C-alpha cells in the first residue's frame, strides 16, 4: 500500500478520501486555497499545502502547481476526487509522468470517455445500445437537416460537456437553429470546444447508472445500479440503490452492458456507466464517468463496500479486491444532496454563514460533508455542501429513515434545500416509484411547503422573540412570576 496520498480536491469528497486513507495508515496531504484555510479537509489531513490562484477555483485547477506540491511533499499517489481535474486526461498524464500513481483510469481512457461523440462511437462499436443521433461537423446547415430527420423532441448537447451546460431540449423545428447556436456558444464558453450533437430525446426517461471496478486488463466487476432520476437543471438531487421498479432481468442487462463497455475499454479503477432508460424498457448509453461519483455512498451502503479503499487497492496492486460473486446488494440506500440554495426561487444559489449545524447520528445514517459550524458558504464553489445517506431494510424503511434524518439535520444561517428534500421524499409519486427525470417539474406544486397557519406563524414569531435579548430583559423585569415558571434556566 502507499505511504502517502495527495488529495487534489476540497469539500466533502476530500474529507471522504482522507477518512479511508487514514484507516489504511496512509499519510494524507491536502491542498487548499486561502478561502478554504479553515475548511474541514485541511484540518482532517496530516499535512496541507496552500495553492494560489486568481480565483479559488483556478487554484484547484492549476495542474502545474498541484504537481509541484505533490513532488515536493513526495506524495506516492494522487486522488482527484470528482469535478475539478478528476476527468482531465492531461492532468492524469502529468501525474504519472512525475512517477506519482494517479488513482483513476488511464489518461487515454479518460480522453476517450471524456468526449461524448467519441465515447458514443466507441459504445456503438462495442455493441452497447445508443440513441439515434447526429454530430455537428463544420457545416451547421447540414447538421440541422440531419437533426430534423431524427425527429423531435431532440436533445442538444455539447460534445465536451457535462453538468448540463450547453444542453437543451428542442421540441419544434422552428427553434432548432436558434437553440443549436446557443448551445454552441455555451459549449465554446464553458469547454472551449463549440462542437455539439443532437440525439433523440427519450420522453419521461429514467437515469440509471452502474458502478464498475476494473483492473486495466479487461477484468471488470460491477457493484450494481443506482437510480439518479430526481434531477434539477440536469443535476442529480436524490439518488438511490437499488433502482426502484426495475425488473431483475432488466437490471442484469444494464449491468452486463456496463461491464461489457468497461471491459472493451480495459478500464482501470472505479468508474460509472450511465444509461437512459425509456418507459418501454429500452435503454441507451449516455456516458461514462471516469472517476468516483458524488453518489457512490449509496452503493457502499447496499453492497457493504468501501469504494475509496477499492480504488487505492487497485491503484497499488492492479488486482480487483472483489470477485463478482462476492458483491451482493442488500437493503436500500437513499442519498440526499444538501445544497445551499432557494429551491422555490428557481434553485437560486444562496450564500452566508453557517451559524448552526446539527447533524443526526445513527448507524444507518451517514453525513458526508465538508462543512463546520461557523463556516462561510461563498459563491466561489458549487452549492452542494454535503450529502445525507440513509439506509433501510427496504425502500419504505430507507425513505422513513431519510425523512427523519432530514428533520433532524439543522443548518441555520444560509438557505438550504433540506425542507425541499423532505417534501420530495414525502411525495406520493416518489413513494409509489413514479419516477423520471421530469419528476421535480411535474411535482412542483406538491413539493411546495404548505403555507404556515396563523397559529404556527404566531408560534414561530414567539420563538423568534424569545431569541432577542430585549425580549428576555423585558420578561425578567418582572422577576417574581418569571422565577415561578423556571424559564430560561440556563441562559
Amino acid at each position: 500500500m502507499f505511504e502517502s496520498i495527495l488529495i487534489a480536491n476540497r469539500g466533502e469528497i476530500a474529507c471522504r478520501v482522507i477518512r479511508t486513507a487514514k484507516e489504511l495508515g496512509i499519510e494524507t496531504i491536502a491542498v487548499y486555497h486561502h478561502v478554504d484555510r479553515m475548511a474541514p479537509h485541511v484540518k482532517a489531513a496530516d499535512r496541507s499545502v496552500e495553492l494560489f490562484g486568481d480565483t479559488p477555483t483556478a487554484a484547484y485547477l492549476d495542474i502545474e502547481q498541484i504537481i509541484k506540491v505533490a513532488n515536493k511533499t513526495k506524495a506516492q499517489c494522487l486522488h482527484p476526487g470528482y469535478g475539478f481535474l478528476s476527468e482531465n486526461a492531461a492532468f492524469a498524464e502529468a501525474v504519472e509522468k512525475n512517477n506519482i500513481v494517479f488513482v483513476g483510469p488511464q489518461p487515454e481512457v479518460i480522453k476517450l470517455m471524456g468526449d461524448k461523440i467519441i465515447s458514443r462511437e466507441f459504445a456503438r462499436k462495442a455493441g452497447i445500445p445508443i440513441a439515434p443521433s447526429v454530430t455537428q461537423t463544420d457545416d451547421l446547415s447540414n447538421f440541422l437537416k440531419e437533426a430534423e430527420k431524427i425527429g423531435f423532441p431532440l436533445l442538444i448537447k455539447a460534445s465536451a460537456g457535462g453538468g448540463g451546460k450547453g444542453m437543451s431540449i428542442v421540441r419544434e423545428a422552428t427553434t432548432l437553429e436558434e437553440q443549436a447556436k446557443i448551445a454552441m456558444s455555451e459549449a465554446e464558453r464553458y469547454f472551449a470546444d463549440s462542437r455539439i450533437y443532437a440525439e433523440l430525446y427519450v420522453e419521461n426517461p429514467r437515469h440509471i447508472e452502474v458502478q464498475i471496478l476494473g483492473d486495466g486488463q479487461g477484468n471488470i466487476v460491477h457493484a450494481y445500479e443506482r437510480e439518479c432520476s430526481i434531477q434539477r437543471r440536469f443535476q442529480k438531487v436524490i439518488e438511490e440503490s437499488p433502482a426502484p421498479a426495475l425488473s431483475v432481468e432488466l437490471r442484469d442487462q444494464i449491468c452486463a452492458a456496463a461491464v461489457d463497455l468497461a471491459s472493451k475499454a480495459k478500464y482501470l479503477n472505479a468508474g460509472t456507466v450511465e444509461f437512459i432508460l425509456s418507459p418501454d424498457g429500452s435503454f441507451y448509453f449516455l456516458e461514462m464517468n471516469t472517476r468516483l461519483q458524488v453518489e457512490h455512498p449509496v452503493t457502499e451502503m447496499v453492497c457493504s463496500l468501501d469504494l475509496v479503499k477499492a480504488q487505492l487497492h487497485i491503484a497499488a496492486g492492479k488486482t480487483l479486491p472483489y470477485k463478482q460473486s462476492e458483491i451482493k446488494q442488500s437493503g436500500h440506500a437513499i442519498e440526499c444532496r444538501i445544497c445551499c440554495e432557494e429551491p422555490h426561487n428557481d434553485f437560486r444559489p444562496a450564500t452566508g454563514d453557517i451559524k448552526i449545524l446539527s447533524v443526526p447520528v445513527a448507524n444507518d445514517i451517514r453525513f458526508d460533508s465538508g462543512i463546520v459550524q461557523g463556516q462561510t458558504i461563498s459563491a466561489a464553489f458549487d452549492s452542494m455542501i454535503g450529502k445525507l445517506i440513509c439506509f433501510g431494510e427496504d425502500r419504505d424503511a430507507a425513505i422513513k429513515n431519510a425523512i427523519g434524518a432530514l428533520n433532524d439535520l439543522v443548518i441555520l444561517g444560509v438557505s438550504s434545500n433540506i425542507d425541499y428534500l423532505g417534501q420530495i421524499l414525502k411525495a406520493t409519486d416518489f413513494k409509489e416509484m413514479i419516477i423520471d427525470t421530469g419528476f421535480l417539474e411535474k411535482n412542483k406544486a406538491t413539493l411546495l411547503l404548505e403555507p404556515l397557519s396563523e397559529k404556527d406563524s404566531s408560534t414561530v414569531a414567539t420563538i423568534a422573540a424569545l431569541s432577542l435579548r430585549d425580549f428576555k430583559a423585558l420578561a425578567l423585569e418582572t422577576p417574581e412570576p418569571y422565577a415561578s415558571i423556571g424559564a430560561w434556566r440556563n441562559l
Partner: protein
Amino acid sequence: MARSFNFSLDEKPINVSLIKCNPVLEVLANELTVNVSSVDQVSSNCFTLIIDDKKKTVWWARDDDAIYVRFDGRTHTLSYRDAISASQQAGVSDNVIKADMPGIVVKTNCNVGDSVKLGDVLIVIESMKMQISIVSPRDGVIKEVNIAANATFEKNAELISLEEKE
C-alpha cells in the same frame, strides 16, 4: 402599553408583545395568544420549550436583522424589523439595482443613456456556477453601470442605477 417586537415572516408583518409572565409567559402574536411555560437550553442555540402545553425542540440563530428558526422540521427566516435602520428602510428604491449575492459579471447588455423597459435583461451574472439574468425593475434610463464583464462583486454591491425618462 406593552412593547411590541416587529418581525416579518414569509413577507407578512407579525407583531409580538409580552402580555404577562405569570404563571406562564403569555405572548400575543398577531392577535393570537401563545403560552410558553418553559425555556430550557440544550446546547448553544438549541432549546426545549413547552409552548402551548407541547414540548418542542427548537433552534434559533441571528444574523443582523435576520432570525432563523427551526421549528417542527421546518426552517423559517424572519426579518426583525426593529433592527433594520431607518435609512435602510428608506433606501428601498428601484433606482439602484443591487446584487443579491456575490458573483462575477458574464456580460452587460446596457450602456449609460440606454432606455430600458420593465423586464429587460440588463446584465448576466454568474454565481456558484449558475447564470442569472438581472432584469430591469421598471421602465427608465440607465444612469450608471458600475461593473464590466468579468468583474467580481460582493453581496449588496450597487451594479446599475436607473433614472426617470426625460
